[in-house]
């Protein structure tokens, strides 16, 4: 007896997520909130601060999409997900998009029926060792004990790397980043391996970051990007082009500082098209004309988001590297807004 009302009541409280079938855009608009799956806590990419406000590089993508669709960068419910739960949560419609440093792979795209809408960070798996070990290359790691976070592609890459180099190793799988760090610092493993960005973030947290070196080898390609469900192309397009707008804006020099001025009209037609003063791009993806402008107002363009969350001025201190614009020798190359 008690059960029915409790379940009923809790369902009311339980913000039942929308149907998973199609028309995610309509669901999000009707709900007024974007449900975005993020990491349970990786400094720089997605982590709540002391007040419980989420911040980070992945979080910024969620906020940009929310701003584009709902005109409110704060209308996002962040759903923290582990490596295990992220895909089910997306498949079951619990979240509308997944921005949890997820590597774009063939099987995830095709076997799991998801759609990677682009790449917001080009990463690769690296190794970190204590300086006192005197190791200068990953090929010298034969017989080492390696700490890995489970549930990621790193486990598979690691096995491939050591096998192809005919080396043996002793894997120590760990659930969370802090625990892996504890193990590594206590010397329970010689090497810590994860995405190079994660290594940098972890190392930045150490008492003496200088005692540890990140080895030069990058043993895998890890294109990390936002993911949506297969089959809802309209929604996929919105997330894809919001990301592209952030990238294009940097290329075209639209920043949060000059966006107000530029939206008055400029002599670059592409800027005008992005900001909605020229053409009907917004209507084509089912939004109004100023969608990209709102997305850019949240945290600025791609470069600004990068610098604010994981750039060289932050404790994480990542350089742009592969994530520079194509003009600067990086891989970021947004298709044109036309």
């Amino acid at each position, binding site marked *: 007896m008690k059960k029915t009302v409790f379940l009923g009541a809790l369902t009311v409280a339980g913000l039942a997520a929308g149907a998973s079938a199609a028309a995610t855009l309509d669901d999000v608009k009707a709900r007024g909130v974007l449900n975005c799956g993020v990491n349970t806590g990786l400094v720089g990419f997605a982590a709540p601060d002391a007040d419980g406000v989420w911040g980070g590089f992945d979080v910024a993508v969620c906020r940009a999409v929310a701003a584009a669709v709902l005109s409110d960068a704060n209308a996002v419910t962040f759903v923290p997900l582990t490596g295990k739960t992220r895909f089910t949560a997306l498949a079951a419609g619990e979240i509308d998009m997944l921005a949890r440093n997820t590597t774009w792979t063939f099987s995830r795209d095709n076997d799991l029926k998801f759609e990677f809408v682009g790449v917001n960070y080009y990463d690769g798996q690296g190794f970190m060792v204590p300086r006192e070990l005197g190791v200068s290359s990953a090929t010298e790691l034969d*017989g*080492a004990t390696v700490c890995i976070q489970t549930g990621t592609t790193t*486990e*598979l890459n690691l*096995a*491939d790397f050591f096998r192809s180099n005919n080396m043996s190793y002793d894997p*120590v*799988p760990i659930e969370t980043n802090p625990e892996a760090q504890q193990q590594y610092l206590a*010397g329970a493993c010689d090497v810590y391996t994860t995405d190079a960005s994660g290594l940098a973030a972890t190392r930045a947290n150490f008492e003496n970051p200088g005692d540890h070196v990140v080895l030069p080898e990058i043993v895998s390609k890890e294109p990390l990007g936002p993911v949506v469900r297969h089959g809802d192309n309209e929604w996929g397009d919105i997330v894809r082009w919001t990301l592209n707008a952030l990238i294009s804006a940097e290329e075209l020099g639209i920043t949060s500082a000059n966006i107000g001025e530029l939206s008055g009209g400029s002599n670059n037609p592409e800027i005008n098209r992005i900001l909605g003063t020229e053409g009907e791009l917004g209507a084509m993806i089912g939004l109004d004309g100023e969608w990209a402008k709102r997305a850019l107002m949240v945290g600025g363009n791609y470069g600004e988001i990068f610098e604010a969350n994981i750039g060289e001025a932050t404790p994480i201190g990542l350089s742009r590297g592969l994530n520079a614009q194509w003009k600067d020798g990086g891989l970021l190359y947004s298709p044109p807004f036309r």
Partner: protein
Amino acid sequence: MSNTTDLPPQTSFKLSMLINDTRYRSLTFQFIALLGLCFFIAWLISNAVVNLENLGQDISYRFLGNPAGYDINQQPISFSSQDTHLRAAFVGVLNTLIVAFLGCITATILGVFAGVLRLSNNWVVSKLMAVYVEAFRNVPVLIWILIIFSIMTVSLPGPRSFRGDNATATMLFDAFAFTNRGVYVPAPVWGSGSLIVVLTFVLSVIAMIAYRRYATKVLYDTGRLLPTLWPSIAIFFLPTILMFFIMGRPIGLDYPELRGFNFQGGIQVRGSLIALWFALSLYTGAFIAENVRAGIMAISKGQTEAAGALGLRPNRIMNLVILPQALRIIIPPLISQYLNLTKNSSLAIAVGYMDVTGTLGGITLNQTGRAIEAVLLLMLFYLLISLGISAIMNVYNNAVKLKER
């Protein structure tokens, strides 16, 4: 008279009798219940079919035959990343059984000691045991696992500390290394003729048991008390040692040695296994201690007094009179504690111990995304283990049960 009232009138069957007549009502209820259950299951399955169709997925166990692609650190059977997911799951199953087996043994020893000592008239000891029992019973096992794993990691030295001239840690007897990666112990090397030594050892164990039985029989038949302690020790050790030297020392020891990054050689008992094993034994041991205490207290005081009147010494009273009787009360809850320990071993993922939840329910599930299939298999495995343990224990329980009437 009674015939007419007792026997229901032989009227024809009416539909309303399904509800009003107690003879048929239970049939109606069961039918409705069965129907409801069938509808419920059909509803679940049809939902699953619709959902999977919408997502373009299917249910298939073909992934079990694909190469796993990941490595497992503790391999009771050999495993490489090219082996299948099925083999990975099987390695996980063996690892679960290992930690459950070790845990059950140590938990029983700890529990019996703590339970008996808690009833000791030694104030310090009984209070210390009370603190142990209460502390472990009232804090979640997950927290204990994490704490003990942390203690191990932080307080034991890494292999690096053993290196160099100013090493901060040394090996015990040059044979045992306690590191935060695990404990390294010498491994036996089996030379030719070692089989005979092992056989001798097995035979001497059997001989020792036979001797003790004989001594008991002599005691019961004639009242003569044969010495048991020293002869037992002699039978236990002497023949094996003799045979060992006769065969020219066929069994050697492979000592662990620091080479490269790690200790090589010997047997490594992994840190994650030790932490999980310890935490589970300490936690379950506290519960077993309570069962033991309750079992002992349930034996009426008259038994102790009677045994005392016969002139038995206190530890003999415990061993010969109280514990055998208490055992009957202790065994059933003990079985459920063993089951709990086995089920709690699924928390291994918290310390990165690769049990079946870590391989099949962890990495395999993550890498293949086959959630339904993996979780169903996982539940099936635990169900089989639970039913197996309770079946074995029930047989034992029936064997020791008091044969009344």
